[in-house]
């Protein structure tokens, strides 16, 4: 071919167009929200002062589902984590309706502050909100939890501050902001310290990022670990395997 070894106009146009298409494709995928903006509020929630068979301390942690559910899901999250928001919007509602509300699974919300400077204060907000509503109106926590994730903007992590979380708390029905603020001031440090044992459990399970999950059969001790906002089908397969083992 005579064009071999030469830069032809056709190839130059092809390369330019291809580069533009590649850049445009990346931009399209990056900016596509994809989340269905669903919110999930578990039919039942409960508290526990026990340590689970897997070694997770349950005291003061939000637990969705029935107390005697055969499978536990330990869910390490961070309100600043975009991948956690994806899980919350796209997978959690289906997971909740098909496994938590049916009594097969209980999900324990745990914090792994790892994204930004406000990750830890955000986690303390979460724990304080739960402690305020756990016995009276636990659904208020899950509404607050979803609303906190909804605050994530399209980019950056400077959005997270006292003002944003105070606003979410103020707007969530059933949550008393002054009680939550008092908890943050009086118990903030002890809550921070109390996260260490469960973080150690996560690291021991080689959970290296958020969202991180351990799916645990409370009777047989079977365990499956999952990391990231995986498709719903992957979670369903993992839960089914753990349920049957």
């Amino acid at each position, binding site marked *: 071919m005579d064009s071999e070894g030469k830069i032809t106009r056709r190839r130059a146009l092809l390369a330019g167009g291809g580069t533009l298409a590649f850049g445009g494709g990346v*931009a399209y995928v990056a900016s596509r929200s994809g989340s269905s903006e669903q919110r999930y509020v578990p039919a039942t929630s409960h508290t526990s002062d026990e340590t689970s068979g897997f070694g997770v301390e349950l005291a003061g942690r939000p637990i969705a589902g029935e107390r005697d559910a055969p499978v536990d899901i330990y869910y390490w999250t961070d309100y600043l984590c975009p*991948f956690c928001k994806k899980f919350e919007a796209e997978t959690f509602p289906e997971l909740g309706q098909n496994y938590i509300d049916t009594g097969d699974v209980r999900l324990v919300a745990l914090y792994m502050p790892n994204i930004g400077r406000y990750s830890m204060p955000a986690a303390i907000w979460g724990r304080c909100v739960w402690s305020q509503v756990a016995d009276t109106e636990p659904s208020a926590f899950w509404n607050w939890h979803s609303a906190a994730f909804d605050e994530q903007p399209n980019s950056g992590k400077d959005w997270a501050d006292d003002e944003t979380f105070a606003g979410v708390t103020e707007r969530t029905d059933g949550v008393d902001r002054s009680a939550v603020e008092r908890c943050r001031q009086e118990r903030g440090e002890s809550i921070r310290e109390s996260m260490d044992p469960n973080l150690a459990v996560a690291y021991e399970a080689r959970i290296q990022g958020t969202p991180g999950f351990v799916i645990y059969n409370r009777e047989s001790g079977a365990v499956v670990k999952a990391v*990231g906002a*995986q498709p719903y089908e*992957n979670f369903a397969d993992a839960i089914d395997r753990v349920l049957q083992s």
Partner: protein
Amino acid sequence: MSETRSVAGRGWSRDLRDALVYPLTSNLRLLSAAVATVVTYAVLVLSSFPQFSIQVLTNDPADVVYAVTALTREVYLSTGWFGIGLVAAYAVLTGVATINALALVRRARRRGASTFVGVLPGVLAAGCASCGAGVLGALGFVGAMAALPFDGNLLRVGGIALLLFFLGRAGDPRTCSIAGARDG
């Protein structure tokens, strides 16, 4: 002195231009550069959260598109347009550098092992793609990129600068250059 430097600079930019357009010299090279770009992009993005990528891909390799799109969004949300733009630029440059490095290695093999030193910059240009955006994640340091200045964008900029430097050093892989001749 400054004149020498500006001559060297002009020589480098001419060589960089020659290196960047080399894949346009044949259909096969252009196609190979495109494939290398897409593969590099996928590897860079997947290595931003290796544990997730491995789990999704071992569960069902067909989910590679899901993993790449989910992590593209994640990288954008974590580092903004600048960060995702750098990753895309990194992939394009690596696509070019890979094709150029392959041409250099093929030429070196024809001429004997001693020529390998001469092609080293070009090979480094391709190999260096892993030293920026990907390697920290791939080594399992999750959060390492986020902890770095500008969420790791500084490292990505450094990697791109290195790629451009080596591409400019190597020039068109079909031509020979005598080290030092251009540097005065």
